[in-house]
């Protein structure tokens, strides 16, 4: 059984009458990248701040590496790096001094501190910027420095709140690469973003919340499978498709057969094996198949399908 590095159980946080986080539970396994998605005001940032020990839950608990964020916040902070949705930079401070300060603040001393700062500078490709003042950097570079700050003490769990917001395409690609590298290094990562196409490329699984409530959690394909048990398939023939339509309607598991431009589209209920058999039958029946495609729904489809877009 895989080990949950980050575990949330029945977390509750209210602000007056607003239920920012309302009894949510999910876990992130070691080395997994989990996308945390939901509309604005869904409770993502509050959940992340509770995980980062900056807020206290009114109910439930969250554990990082087995330590409770309420009972052992100091140990949690040692295991976790948090990057909020703002850079948080100091005036009159160079990149190296900035990272050095946070390394000191994490109680890294002497040679280990210098090594940690050098490693971050190298890993984040900040070598040329070492002596530049942080506040003078572009948004993308500030985000890079902020990520460096979050991992300077080599935490096992990373919590990133909208890390790619307002970045230009190049900075976004660079950022995505860094996240993947960190995941390869074995870091457990929970990250929220509104750029769903990007999340789907980075994440192994997603958790969707809305109005403080958990709507779905797990690998995107599994959630989609649960939401849409039928697959959307299409066949393109090198000729007219009238006969194929009639043929498909008679096949088991096939429904909603219709023409879609040059293709015949239909819904199919069944697994991979059943799909292989269907393709074999179509070809075996002598249809001149030019193209056979399965249309997989993406994270955006999932998001639209399960959220209602209501805010508190």
């Amino acid at each position, binding site marked *: 059984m895989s080990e949950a590095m980050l575990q949330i*159980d*029945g977390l509750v946080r209210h602000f007056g009458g607003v239920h920012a986080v309302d009894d949510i539970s999910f876990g992130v396994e070691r080395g997994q990248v989990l996308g945390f998605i939901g509309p604005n005001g869904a409770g993502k940032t509050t959940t992340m701040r509770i995980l*980062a*020990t*900056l807020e*206290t839950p009114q*109910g*439930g608990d969250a554990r990082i590496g087995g330590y409770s964020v*309420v*009972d052992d*916040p*100091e140990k949690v*902070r*040692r295991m*976790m790096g*948090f990057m*909020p949705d*703002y850079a*948080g*930079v*100091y*005036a*009159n*401070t160079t990149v190296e*001094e900035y990272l050095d*300060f*946070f390394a*000191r*603040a*994490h*109680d890294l*001393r*002497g040679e280990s501190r210098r090594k940690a700062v050098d490693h971050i500078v190298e890993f984040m490709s900040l070598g040329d910027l070492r002596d530049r003042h942080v506040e003078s950097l572009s948004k993308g570079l500030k985000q890079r420095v902020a990520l460096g*700050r979050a991992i300077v*003490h080599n935490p096992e769990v990373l919590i990133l709140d909208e890390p790619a917001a307002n970045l230009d395409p190049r900075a976004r690609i660079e950022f995505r690469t860094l996240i993947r590298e960190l995941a390869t290094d074995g870091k457990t990562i929970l990250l929220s973003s509104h750029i769903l196409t990007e999340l789907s490329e980075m994440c192994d699984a997603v958790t969707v919340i809305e109005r403080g409530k958990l709507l779905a959690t797990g690998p995107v394909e599994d959630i989609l499978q649960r939401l849409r048990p039928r697959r959307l398939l299409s066949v393109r023939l090198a000729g007219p498709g009238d006969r194929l339509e009639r043929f498909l309607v008679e096949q088991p598991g096939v429904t909603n057969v219709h023409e879609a431009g040059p293709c015949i589209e239909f819904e199919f209920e069944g697994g991979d094996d059943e799909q292989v058999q269907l393709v074999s039958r179509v070809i075996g029946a002598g249809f001149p198949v030019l193209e056979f495609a399965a249309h997989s729904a993406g994270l955006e489809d999932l998001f639209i399908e399960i959220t209602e877009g209501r805010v508190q």
Partner: protein
Amino acid sequence: MTVARVVGWLEDRSDWLSPLVVKEIRQVVRGREFSLSFGACLVAGLVVAFLGATDVLAGGTAGRWTFVSLMACLAFLGLAVVPLGAFNALRRERVEQTFDLITLTALSSRRVVIGKLMTQAVRLTTLFAAMAPFVAMSFLLGGIDFVTIAVSLVVLFMASLWMCALCVFLSALARARALSAVIFAGVGIALLFAAGIFGTAFRAISMGIFFGPLGGGPTTSEVLWILAGLSTVWLVTLVNLVLLAVNRLSLPTEDSVTPLRLGFLAQLLLFVGWAVSFLFEPPNIREGVGLMLYRIGCIHLAAVAVFAVTERPAVPRRAVLRMQPASFPGWLARVFGPGGGRGAFTVFLQLLILVGALALFPIDPYDRRRILTAFGYLCFYVAVPTLAFRLAFPKYATPARLGIAMLVTLAAAMALPDLLYYLIFQPDLLSLEFSFRQLLNPLQTIANWRIVETNGWGLIPSTIGIFGVLALVALVPTGARLAAEEASVGATGRQLESSAAAD
């Protein structure tokens, strides 16, 4: 190699206290504010020294006024500019959202506050060092002795650091940007006044009020005793300001209440200890000291009560865990820990200590009754609104709302009787003389206690006082009950969750 090792050791020591010091000093030194204040310091010193030297060449002894002028400059920087910088240092962390980032590190709130304060201490030392050659010159110019110079510099440094601690605490009070800006403006104005007052005090010192030419003041050994006493009070109050700031900056999961309670108890014991040291003096001195202890104790108790009584009754989970072991820290946490009516208990305990200490002094029975009434009023206006609010609206009884309830009750008690009287009876003249209807007003009643006793109105203040003390005592079990209720609600919730999970 040895130098590198020493530097490394120094770095480690500095980081152990707070890594903020190195970072902040770098920022301060590169900032415009420091360049301006340091430059102004040097220019002022040069101008004053030049004028002093000119006066000496003309045959005068310019040492005293040179020193006074230099101290005025230093007082402005040390009591206004630097403390304002201390206030701003913490405010900026909040505005620029870097405070959360520090909180996420291994730095505790205590190390953050100490770091902020030490940075200002280094800044003050730099400014004092910049002025040192000119101050030395004032001694050489004649007319002022070394002890006066040394005492003045030490007192100014201590006062400046205390002001910095006060400013860090005030800065810690406001989380919202708007409130922080309002406090910043208020603190700025207040510090300018403080600098003016201290400037005048140093002028008095240099004129020989305490030492030297005017005579009649205390001897050098007496001055040293006074300084030792002041230093002790300075240190204890400074520590308590730091603890207050730490308390305001701490996350709810941290227990910053126990050290604060112990700090304020130590402060009270210090005042009592100081007063008790006069017990073998003649009766008139003892009575004067007793009355002084009453005044200081009243201010101390009011400050402690306002914060301690209004705290949330819920006991954080971590504090509960800390209270469990049968060790000395566990025992301390059970008595002085957060929530559960312990705040009211602390106030009651300090009240008992104060009343017990005052019983040792030969105070006139008339003053004794007045003192007890004052304590009774204090308990009444702190405990009665808090108890009423807690019982009527337990869910809405936040510390801020309870503080407002106290203020509103006090303001109503001071203004309403007169207002109602003039609305109902509509007299021709607005009489400001003390009368029966003002017995609810604590300040008026205490100030006019002789009239109260002469007219035999003592029963009403006594009743108010007894109600106040009873309400304070009642807050202890009420707080414990509310804490237990909150804990049981949490436990029920957890039980439901676990049974649901089991299903």
